[in-house]
């Protein structure tokens, strides 16, 4: 177990479980790993909430990022390398400081740590949300005017 010691395996399994993966197989010239979870995992009762309608767009949760991505393509590491700027509070997301004003950021912009990237309104207060990463804005996930919950991803940023 030099290549993949238990610690590494542990992280892999943790990752697979978080992402609701039932079976996993990885084959490389020097290594082949195959894994199959018990049918019941992730616990069916726990996993089910995503099935019914929620006010929120489901935050990128376990189930949403297909593990396939990770497993299938070591040559398409796109998604993993991206940093998500998440909402630190519950409220309503706005892309600009006022209706009609330009958005704080758009795809392709470079953001710095601490730069205001959007507004989340909570209890009538306009809270400026700052980026916790420096890099290039790759995707804007939330839509202006949309309610967001704690931890909900707002932007995807390719960190520098």
């Amino acid at each position, binding site marked *: 177990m030099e290549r993949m010691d238990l610690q590494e395996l542990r992280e892999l399994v943790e990752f697979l479980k978080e992402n609701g993966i039932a079976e996993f197989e990885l084959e490389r010239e020097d290594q082949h790993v195959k894994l199959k979870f018990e049918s*019941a995992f992730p*616990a069916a*009762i*726990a*996993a*089910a*909430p995503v099935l*019914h*309608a*929620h*006010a*929120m767009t489901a*935050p990128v*949760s376990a189930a949403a990022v297909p593990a396939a991505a990770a497993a299938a393509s070591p040559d398409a590491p796109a998604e993993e390398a991206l940093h998500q700027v998440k909402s630190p*509070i*519950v*409220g*309503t997301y706005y892309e600009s400081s006022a209706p009609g004003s330009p958005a704080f950021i758009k795809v392709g912009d470079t953001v710095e740590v601490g730069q205001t990237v959007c507004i989340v309104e*909570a*209890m009538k207060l306009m809270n400026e949300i700052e980026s916790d990463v420096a890099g290039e804005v790759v995707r804007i996930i939330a839509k202006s005017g949309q*309610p*967001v*919950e*704690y*931890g*909900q991803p707002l932007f995807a940023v390719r960190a520098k």
Partner: protein
Amino acid sequence: MAMFKKVLVANRGEIALRVISACREMGIGTVAVYSEADRNSLHVRFADEAVCIGPPRSAESYLNVPAVISAAEICDVDAIHPGYGLLSENANFAEVCRASNIKFIGPRPEVTRMMGEKSTARQTMKAAKVPILPGSDGVIASVDEALTWAKSVGYPVILKAVAGGGGRGMRICRSATDLPDLYNQASTEALNAFGNGDLYMEKFIERPRHIEFQVLADEHGNVMSLGERECSIQRRHQKLIEEAPSLQVSPELRARLGGVIERSLREIGYWNAGTIEFLMDEDGEIYFIEMNTRIQVEHPVTEAITGIDLVKAQLRIAAGEHLSAIVPERPRINGHAIECRINAEHPEKFTPSAGKITAFNLPGGNGIRVDTAQYAEGIVPPYYDSMIAKVICHGKDREEAMNKMQRALDQFVVEGIHTTIPLQQKIFADPDFRRGDFDTKFMERFFEKEAEHKRTEAEG
């Protein structure tokens, strides 16, 4: 006023699920809020909508007023049900709700605040003729004054340091002969410990029972007492077992005290469900200690013997309904009900036992109610209260209710974590408990007996 369309439940665990279930049965939409640790909880699954409001720590999620209010606003709810604990007796939260035009399901903030301050609550109840624990009602100036007070209060009395805490400057006094010495000792001790020798006096109850009265009150001045529960089986002021009715409360006492409570709450302008807690001394005298202005953990025992759904009643009261529509006539007491709080704790060491539940079998069948938000493969997070389930047994009399509880506890299987079930199984086999011979010191004696038993076994 029409019934709410959508209610946010600002709580977690079994009580969140309890409120969600009541809403569903009434056709009211529900919003659950949850911390990151509770993402896979049943209250999240069974609500119509769910909003993550923060990280695991309560202070940053369930106790985070702006987060809860924002969730209520973005989901556009009419009302918030606070459950018990957490924000349920937080008058500021109730005020923010009012300011945000969201109905807080509870009394007015002013009333919550008044009842939250022990001395104000005591004075308010005293003024309303509710019996309170007799005492000096302030600092005693001298030994002579202490003797006078003690005579009027009746021995035994307890002297306490005004500045006190931790038992220092405290003396139990059983006769006038002993009083002067004890007074001086306590005063000196208090002076040395706190730099203040002032003392006050209260009646001392050797073996108090914990008796509480459940009430419902509407916003139109109507109040109804629904009788008492007895919650004397406690460990360090944590209730373990509750029952209704109490063996110690006669129909006369129930009616008389119920009447006093109804009048006093009407005067205060109380509404919502509520609980008035009393201590009962060895002679059956009863003394007010505090009021809880929210639904109580042990409310199901009252529901069992009265047939009234207290959570639905809260919702209807908050929507402006009249009590006479909710409870058309004073309910008769039907049989006997007992509740066990099942905690995720080691049954002897009482250390919290968080973790994954690997096997879970709930007891069912005739006369058994279980309120829980746990399930097989569920996780008990380490951040919150350790209660994972309540088992409520309803029988035609106390004997049958106890037998049902024994059967139910035997069939309640929880593996992967420790629970208090083995402890409760022993309590239900204890002859004193079965006879009804107990008080709030019962668990101390019980643990002593257990320790004694173990010593004997080890020696034998």
